């Protein structure tokens, strides 16, 4: 089951913590802002670890929409 996650670009400072913990999900754009490359790139618990690791609270888990 893939967790859905949103990036608040105003809060993201580009630390790369989310890329360390969930490298299958996140990448940086050329301004070093995190973007979700592959929503199903990591198991849900791994994405949660990345969300918790974000130093500025820029990541949030979104509720599942279609029960996938």
């Amino acid at each position, binding site marked *: 089951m893939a967790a859905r996650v949103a990036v608040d670009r105003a809060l993201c*400072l*580009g*630390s*790369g*913590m989310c*890329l*360390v*913990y969930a*490298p299958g999900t996140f*990448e*940086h754009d*050329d*301004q*070093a802002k995190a973007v979700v490359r592959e929503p199903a790139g990591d198991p849900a618990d791994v994405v949660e*670890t990345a969300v*918790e*690791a974000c*130093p*500025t*609270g820029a990541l949030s888990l979104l509720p599942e929409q279609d029960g996938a």
Partner: protein
Amino acid sequence: MTETQVLDRERIRTLFDLRSSYNARAGGDFTADPYPAWRRLRESGPVHEGTVHELTGYPGTALFQGLPEPDRPHYSAFSHAALDQAYRNPEVFASSPEAVDTTTVSGVTNSMLSMGGDQHRRYRALVQPSFVPAKARWWITNWIEETVHSLIDGFAGEGRAELNVDFCAAIPVLTITGGFGIPVGQALDMREALNRPMEIVEMLRPVVAARREAPQDDLISVLVEAELKDEDGTTHRLSDAEIYSFALLLLFAGSGTTWKQMGITLTALLQRPELLAQIKDDRSKLRPAIEEALRWMPTDPMFSRFVTRDVELEGTRLPEGSVLHLCLGAANRDPARWDRPDEYDITRPMRASFAFGGGPHICLGMHVARAEISTGIGALLDRLPNLRLDPDAEPPRYIGMYERGVTEIPVVFG
């Protein structure tokens, strides 16, 4: 001159002498294990009155960020939850007591390390793209690999080496100065002048001028070309003074830290030969080994924040104007977050520790530091068969109060 000639072992030994490098000012003569004291402190309350070194039982004066500040009340936090709250609230727990004025002299206190809010965000955004994980390759192939291999060339034929000074010490400085676009010979001069920042500025001056004329693929070029958006929306190029502050911060924040953390990681592995053998055979285990060493024994176990208004933290009232010392060494072993926290166990589920700090000032160089440590240890494992601690020499010990690391790491191989 080839790099091997420049990286003369005697010069490196003088420059990175362990006795002078364990800066006595930061409590370099502290040789006890602080972790039992930190556990007792954390168990008796998340926040205590006093500084970390006093509460740990270190008798001398030790200096670091947020010290000595004799006119302010001092508090120290030891639990993961207390640190998490403080890091995530930078308005109340600020990195410096007053606003940073970048137009005055260059120096680390005038760098983004001390800035807050929007000013910090704008300055950090200028360099963050050069320090993202995707840039690790750029750092590795341009500078890290060459340094690592020429250092190993210096002792590979001898069957023995001292890895802390002869290997770990020079890699971080040469990585950062390489990133600046400074040749190796001059890089060691820069290291020699580390405590005389104005001399470093003089060495940087011609490089900055040259890059303003003709930018290259290096960090100084990134800084001269960067456009800073001011609060009113106008953009300006960084002044020379601002570029020097950036460069000094990177040199100070990135040299001793990565050196000592690499030594800590190597020592943890050499003391566990079976684990080291496993990692040699399965390199995917090197990454968790590095991460676990960061949690278990971070080289900088304390950073500080200035309390900007009366606030309560985990039940303790902190008055405006006080200094809060965040003992991340203690928080990294909080049993509320980690099972068997005192054990060095590379099979733990990966989750963030505070080794690189937290909040908006979280370490800018963390991905470069990881690249240096993994390239360095990986190359030792590739090139030195049967690498082990020298059984006839004094084994390495973990020392230091606010800049922790190991004594000499004598090894034999082959």
